């Protein structure tokens, strides 16, 4: 079982990112994935989070308890959710938006300037998809093919090409980072 939390602030496409991960895992990778999300006033404009539980068979308990993977795309989200990350978990951040306060030795830590890359591609709205590509390369929780397929139908049709490019950029950045560190 893998428990994932994607977090940031409202409007960054955090829920969309979680949705694509869940869709990729359950429809294209043949696993089961349950997405839940924060609702209510706490999710509007401030720290916002999407949770995905992935299982080989059926997901029984739908909520995450201690996430194995945390993606943080805002300082507030990082502050709110970092302490809950599993001891040997994986932390992914947007390095321009999150300054980690303390480094936990046991966790695996990866960073990417996702929003900057998106801006260089002409639209910061795709920062979540850059992060998704990065997430895919680094965590291998979903396959690259599944991630790309799941983008179809999940973003407006006229932006599919742009989103696929954003995914690939994030993916390549992650792959490079892994090969450099190994």
């Amino acid at each position, binding site marked *: 079982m893998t428990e994932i939390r994607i977090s940031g602030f409202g409007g960054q496409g955090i829920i969309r990112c979680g949705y694509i991960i869940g869709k990729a895992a359950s429809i294209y990778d043949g696993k089961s994935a349950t997405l*839940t999300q924060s*609702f209510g006033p706490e999710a509007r404009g401030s720290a916002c989070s999407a949770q995905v539980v992935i299982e080989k068979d059926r997901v029984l308990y739908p909520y995450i308890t201690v996430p194995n993977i945390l993606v943080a795309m805002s300082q507030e989200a990082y502050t709110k959710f970092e302490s809950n990350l599993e001891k040997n978990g994986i932390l992914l951040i947007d390095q321009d938006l999150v300054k980690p306060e303390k480094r936990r030795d046991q966790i695996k830590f990866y960073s990417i300037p996702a929003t900057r890359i998106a801006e260089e591609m002409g639209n910061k709205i795709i920062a979540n998809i850059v992060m998704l590509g990065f997430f895919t390369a680094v965590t291998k929780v979903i396959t690259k093919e599944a991630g790309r397929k*799941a983008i179809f139908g999940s973003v407006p049709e006229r932006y599919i090409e742009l989103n696929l490019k954003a995914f690939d950029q994030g993916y390549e950045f992650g792959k490079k980072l892994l090969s450099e560190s190994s």
Partner: protein
Amino acid sequence: MKADPKRVLTGEHYLDGDHACAEGALAAGCTFIAGYPITPSTEVVERISERIPTVGGIFIQMEDELASMAAVVGASWSGAKALTVTSGPGFSLMMENIGLACMLEAPCVIINVQRGGPSTGLPTLTGQADMMQVRWGSHGDYEIIALSPNSPQECFFFTIKAFNLSEKYRVPAFVMTDECVGHMTEKVIIPEADKIELFQRRYTKLPPEEYLPFKPGPNLVPEMVKAGDGYRIHATGLTHDEKGYPVMNWEAQEKLVRRLVEKIRKNADDIVEYEEEETDDAEIVLLSYGISSRVAIPAIQKARAEGIKVGVLRLIVVWPFPEKRVYELSKKIKAFVVPEINYGQIVLEVERSVHGECDAILVPHGGGWVHNPEDIYRGIKEAVK
């Protein structure tokens, strides 16, 4: 009758429970929805309001829930397959006209995405505390049908089932889902239209001069006509005879109310549906429904790993309650363990049905979240003591 391919979104989707209910309703042939959107059920009407005009049908946003339910009763009598969707506070407001739907025998479906109560309670968080209200919330004697899904996939299928049962028995049928299931997103497989069986409403073939709108037909259910088809009919919330005219005496009351109750009670074997597992040599049977039946599974697995013989009776149809089966099982087991997100509702029905043969142990939860499986596990441990 098979579903209309135009209305069925065949394929594999990643949908939340609310959206899956919407697709279920469309596949079931729903042509009319009146609603007053309320959290956490809003996504159902959001999706239907976009989709229904493209497949033939009407969505009306009403001024409140009283009007929504009234419109549903009217639409049903005009020949539509009618739906409304709500949650706690709206459900309370619908009660009067739900009684009207029972009295007029208007087939219709009501989806209640339950949230924490009482009153406005917890708009964005889950609950299962409307399970007695759905059964008894309107005044007078009547029966209804209620189903309770535990996944988006079941939201799709149970909404179709609700329409079929409602059409067959001319009674309001309820999909008692909850915020957790409504807002969780999972894979939903929508089959081909020709794999979806729909019950076709029975319309009379009699000429207008011979037709009696409340004369019982097969299964004690009268045949219908559509308002506007040339039959002069009278439908009233007052106690009525087979012609539909008000009759104010006990004989008419006895005849009518008895039939309203018996058309469900006498057909309970056809309506009741549950999943049963490992009850043959069970010591304990976990009886649950909706999301609670799902988060109970890790607790059952843990108890079984310790050698405790735990069977499962998971209700698909909660009302009518499977009292016969519960009584049969009660004679060979020690206890039923009943987790539900309330302080004791369906467990009362279990207590009633076991006639003192075994214990009924409630594992309550006040609402706002689902059970921790550990709490259910402790309930099982307590039961074997």
